């Protein structure tokens, strides 16, 4: 049950030996639990939280605020009395370092309404997130059988933010290109010519291909070579290829996207549009929030025999005194459990330097785990509003390309608005998610606040009556923010022999990179096993025809 429960009141976990123990129920951990269960591994899946999803959860407004603002620490290992202290085992205490830091939340208006309706919100902790209709997440959901537990709705429209011009549609079909009033006839023809070339390149029956040498040059250079104007270039690079860094700025963009990869991005976007008859655009969103995805994979794992225990912190690792190899874990309840392999949520680490009391223990074995690789940060923002950023549009994605907000903006900002036609917020409200990559918290928050101010209005006081309607560049009234949150998530990766750490939420809109890293981790752990073999059990979808997918409403 999800009501708070004292882990010490749980019956002891039985059995005590497993092939794999997983700590944390974020998306990567949940996918691995489902994949390893599917190939017959015995798994114990634990989470110190009272909810599924870890840093990919969807939470009520109250729970989200608590999660962001109250520090999470593990129970002291001293309170976890050892159930099997022995001479050949060394107990190494774990430290929990929250992935979400520098959090600030504010309620501007309607606090009574928000409080009363807290449970009607399912707010994503790792937003903005959506699935491209043709990306590998969809394929994995189908292949694993997790799709049967989920329902989706299409994101209505995609926009790109243009400096001094507001929101412009991202063209999703040839018809849309010709209907777009913001594109000149010349721009439309240039774009159509470009798409025709890409289409011919992707079509195996066509002779005309993009020259090999062009495929290896930066995509941005290829677009210039094609004489595409800056506006079109911006849409292709940031709203369709979804690139993070300013491709025209070599100082900040360490790795420019190659043309061949840019073409792949275009192909994915194009095949996402209209893939499903009931989804208008390229993107899908689970109707109860992104937190449903890890839950679906956890259910797949449970059906295959994986044991689930929430509210159960792991406080220590059990290591072999002589070899320094991993043996098992100690729970907050004091119980010791053993497994061949361990996967740790990336928020867990080993204190460095290790305490000297470990004596002869070969502590260099643990250095890789305590020296975590921090690859950067993602700044995330969430706003609750009473009206849409675009009249008559309930759910939409927005990309702010580099330099669209101010000259020093070197990263793109991704945003996703979800309305109450999905079960994530009360009727008449909207949630806007924003994220951007950054090097420090201040820079990240500055970017997000600039993005927020471009489309929304922050009330001057607690009384919204006194606020004049603010006109945006496109003459639409800007929605007023009722509540907002800003926080930073560190991008961390660590690996140590039998102990693996899953990737943290990245700055991407979709899950492709994350799932690639997850599959790679699974293959490292189980090189002889297939990542989700063809479904065979009665619970699994047994539809023989895999030619295509439809969305049933």
């Amino acid at each position, binding site marked *: 049950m*999800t009501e708070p429960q004292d882990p010490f009141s749980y019956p002891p976990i039985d059995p005590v030996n497993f092939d794999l123990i997983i700590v944390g129920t974020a998306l990567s951990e949940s996918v691995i639990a489902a994949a390893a269960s599917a190939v017959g591994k015995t798994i114990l899946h634990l989470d110190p939280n009272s909810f599924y999803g870890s840093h990919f959860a969807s939470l009520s407004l109250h729970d989200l605020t608590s999660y962001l603002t109250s520090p999470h620490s593990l129970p002291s290992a001293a309170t976890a009395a050892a159930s099997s202290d022995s001479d050949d085992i060394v107990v190494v205490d774990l430290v929990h370092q929250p992935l979400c830091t520098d959090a600030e939340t504010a309620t501007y208006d309607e606090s009574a309404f928000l409080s009363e309706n807290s449970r009607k919100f399912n707010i994503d902790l790792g937003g903005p997130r959506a699935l491209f209709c043709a990306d590998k997440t969809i394929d994995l959901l189908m292949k694993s059988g997790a799709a*049967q537990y989920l329902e989706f709705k299409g994101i209505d429209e995609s926009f790109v933010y243009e400096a001094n011009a507001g929101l412009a549609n991202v063209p999703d079909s040839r018809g849309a290109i010709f209907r777009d009033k913001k594109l000149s006839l010349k721009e439309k023809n240039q774009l159509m010519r470009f798409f025709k070339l890409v289409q011919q390149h*992707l079509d195996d029956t066509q002779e005309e291909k993009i020259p090999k040498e062009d495929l290896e040059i930066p995509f941005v250079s290829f677009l210039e070579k094609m004489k595409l104007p800056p506006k079109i270039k911006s849409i292709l690079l940031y709203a369709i290829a979804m690139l993070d860094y300013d491709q025209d700025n070599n100082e900040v963009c360490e790795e420019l996207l190659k043309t061949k990869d840019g073409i792949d991005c275009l192909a994915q976007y194009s095949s*996402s549009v209209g893939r499903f008859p009931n989804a208008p655009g390229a993107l899908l969103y689970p109707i109860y929030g992104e937190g*449903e995805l890890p839950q679906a994979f956890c259910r797949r794992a449970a059906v295959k025999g994986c044991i*689930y225990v929430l509210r159960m912190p792991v406080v220590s690792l059990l290591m072999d005194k002589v070899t320094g190899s991993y043996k098992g874990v100690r729970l907050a309840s004091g119980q010791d459990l053993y497994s061949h392999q361990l996967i740790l949520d990336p928020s867990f680490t080993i204190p460095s330097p290790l305490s000297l009391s470990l004596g002869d223990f070969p502590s260099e074995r643990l250095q890789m785990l305590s020296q975590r690789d921090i690859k950067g940060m993602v700044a995330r923002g969430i706003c609750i509003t009473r009206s849409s950023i675009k009249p008559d549009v309930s759910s939409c994605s927005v990309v702010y390309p580099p330099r669209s907000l101010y000259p020093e903006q070197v990263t793109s900002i991704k945003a996703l608005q979800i309305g109450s036609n999905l079960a994530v917020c009360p009727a008449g409200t909207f949630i806007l998610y924003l994220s951007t990559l950054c090097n420090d918290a201040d820079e990240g928050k500055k970017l997000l606040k600039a993005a927020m101010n471009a489309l929304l209005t922050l009330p001057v006081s607690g009384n919204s009556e006194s606020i004049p309607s603010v006109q945006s560049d496109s003459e639409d009234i800007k929605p007023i923010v009722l509540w907002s949150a800003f926080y930073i998530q560190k991008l961390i990766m660590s690996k140590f022999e039998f102990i693996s750490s899953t990737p943290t939420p990245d700055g991407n809109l979709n899950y492709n990179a994350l799932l690639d890293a997850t599959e790679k981790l699974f293959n490292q752990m189980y090189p002889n096993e297939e990542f989700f073999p063809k479904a065979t059990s*009665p619970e699994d979808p047994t539809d023989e025809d895999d030619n295509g997918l439809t969305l049933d409403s």
Partner: protein
Amino acid sequence: MARTRNKSLQAKLVLLGDMGAGKTSLVLRFVKGEFSEYQESTIGAAFFTHVLSLNEATVKFDIWDTAGQERYHSLAPMYYRGAAAAIVVYDITSMDSFVRAKKWVREVQRQANSSLTMFLVANKADLEDERKVRYEEGEEYAKENGLSFLETSAKTAQNVNELFYEIAKRLVKANPSRQSGMKLHTRPGETRRGFLCCT
């Protein structure tokens, strides 16, 4: 005479209750007409569909079993989402399972939608000699909390079909609405209208 089926209803039904109360046995008795004395903990199949034809409508049940996630009180919110009906099961030979059933009732009331049809089911009614929970206790608790109550035996099939028929009738009457999205299915033939296509 052929029955006129003027309505078709699809309803998600969730099973709740402690491990060993007989949740899976009840469903297997209803869906497959089977009973196993030594039913394994629910692994391998925790999702069943079954169609009931009533005079006034056809009800297609999507029945969700717990997949063992109730063992350490770790059922996911997803389990309750969009449920039109819930069956909370306890074992008449275990007072502890009855006490826990009350907690499950509270959990359903907290997690699921307010219009949900809920049945409290006292299972293993064939074990009268080992009874620890009186019929009246279950009935009284159900009445106090606005639940329907039945005693069943998955072993003898007592009241099992009646339980599901009664739920189906209530659902047809209530005609519950819920926020629904689209499900992914493997089907041939896809629509295409991307900018790299000819349309």
